[in-house]
């Protein structure tokens, strides 16, 4: 379903965020992408959906090459990003309606899907309130619903439970398991070991822009002679705390005034 070959990203200024990543995700698989902060997970997922331009390599999703048929890919994917982008001046229902229309769905299908999704993420009672009034957990849940409006074949999730309390995490995990059981392919980036252990069929660990190990949980434990995923994580990835690069993608409005 997802076929990535030798994917690289070097940002202007020479920062090599991703250094030749290759992997495949099968249809219906729950694939976990783990790594410490600054490992290149978010850059990779953003390249997979075309939000960050790749330097080289190829990305094929659902048989379509990202370079040649991005629109075909956009029809098939949903993406719940790390930064929850909501229209603060709209209600949840209005946003879902708008997104359904932008995916060119029939009106009847949009309305049915809205009811189903609001129920799924338990936001039916607040659907007509402005998104700006939602708590952090509600926003995450709603963002997940928004990424599912067009019933995508592939769901990309970038740290979907970041900043959530245990109850909200369990709720989201339950939804993700359900979606995957219904046949949806899920690509998840996380740095929570328990999340990957609980949800993912297969896991790839990334460090300093490269995949350092990959396999099912059982395969990884056997390969690294470890008892937990955390042990593997600590032995295969180095902590770069204090040495991470700044986000090279963010514009620097002060660049010209700095000496």
């Amino acid at each position, binding site marked *: 379903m997802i076929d990535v070959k030798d994917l690289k990203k070097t940002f202007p200024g020479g920062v090599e965020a991703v250094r030749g990543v290759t992997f495949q995700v099968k249809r219906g698989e729950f694939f976990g992408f783990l790594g410490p902060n600054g490992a290149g997970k978010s850059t990779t997922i953003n390249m997979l959906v075309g939000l960050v*331009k790749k330097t080289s390599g190829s990305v094929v999703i659902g048989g379509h090459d990202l370079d040649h048929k991005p629109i075909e890919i956009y029809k098939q994917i949903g993406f719940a990003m790390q930064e929850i982008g909501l229209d603060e001046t709209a209600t949840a229902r209005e946003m879902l309606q708008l997104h359904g229309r*932008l995916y060119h769905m029939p009106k009847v299908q949009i309305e049915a899907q809205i009811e189903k999704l609001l129920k799924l993420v338990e936001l039916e009672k607040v659907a007509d309130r402005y998104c700006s009034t939602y708590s952090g957990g509600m926003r995450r849940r709603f963002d997940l619903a928004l990424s599912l409006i067009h019933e995508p074949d592939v769901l990309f999730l970038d740290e979907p439970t970041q900043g959530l309390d245990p109850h909200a995490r369990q709720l989201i995990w339950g939804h993700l398991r359900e979606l995957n059981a219904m046949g949806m392919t899920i690509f998840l980036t996380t740095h929570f070991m328990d999340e990957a252990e609980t949800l993912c069929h297969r896991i790839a660990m990334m460090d300093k822009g490269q995949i350092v190990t990959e396999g099912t949980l059982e395969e990884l434990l056997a390969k690294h002679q470890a008892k937990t995923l955390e042990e593997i994580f600590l032995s295969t990835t180095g902590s770069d705390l204090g040495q991470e690069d700044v986000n090279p993608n963010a*514009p620097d409005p002060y660049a010209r005034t700095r000496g």
Partner: protein
Amino acid sequence: MRNFVSDWFYLSARCTKQIWRPLLALIPSLFIPIFFFFVNANSLGAIAKSPGFPNVSYRDFIAPVAMFTAVFFSAGNAGIEMVQDISNGYFKKLMIMPINRLAILLGRLTEVAIQAVMQGLIVLVLLLAVGVNFRTGFFGIISIFVILILFAMAWSCVSMIAALRTQNARLVQSMFVIVFPFLYITTSQAPKSLLSPTFRVLSSYNPVTYVIEGVRALVISGWSDPAIPEAFATVVVLFLILVVFTLASFQKAMK
């Protein structure tokens, strides 16, 4: 093509709702032109008796400026709304949808056009209520609106370019100060013959001068005034140039 039109329609509807959410945000851009119109019309009325001043009241002379200013101040909101979408991540959501990116830009421009009409109409009603006489009549008023809409869309492109290039809300918001030199280094307050030589030269390089002169001609002169086609030409050229630059900034924003 059908999908493109439908995307444009729904994105325009989304942007247009932002005009009155919250409703109070509309007030400053209406208050400023109306305030200056009444203050200037009452305090500077004597200018109309100066030699070289057209044979109209000062109130009628500055009436077009009130309509123009309302549009000028609010057109920058498009950039502020765009930078909000960028900074909270919503813009990225739009970029990975199966929609034509031109529809995103056209959605914003449609919002600007609708807001220009709404604000222009409110100021127009006030001007008619205080007795301002539009010499070119109904079709002159329509022409004024066409000029104002094109100018508003062009000016909104400036704020959207700033939004796309800097992605910084404070920078985009502070851009409204640019309105003042563009508005006052013109013939907005007095005819060219009464300006100082320096201001006369500077105003002739300011495209806003030609827009104001054209709108004014539609109020106080008549269809034969050459300032009218000059104003149309100015706003069309400005609009086309700035739309091209905005589209280029759109592409550049996706690294």
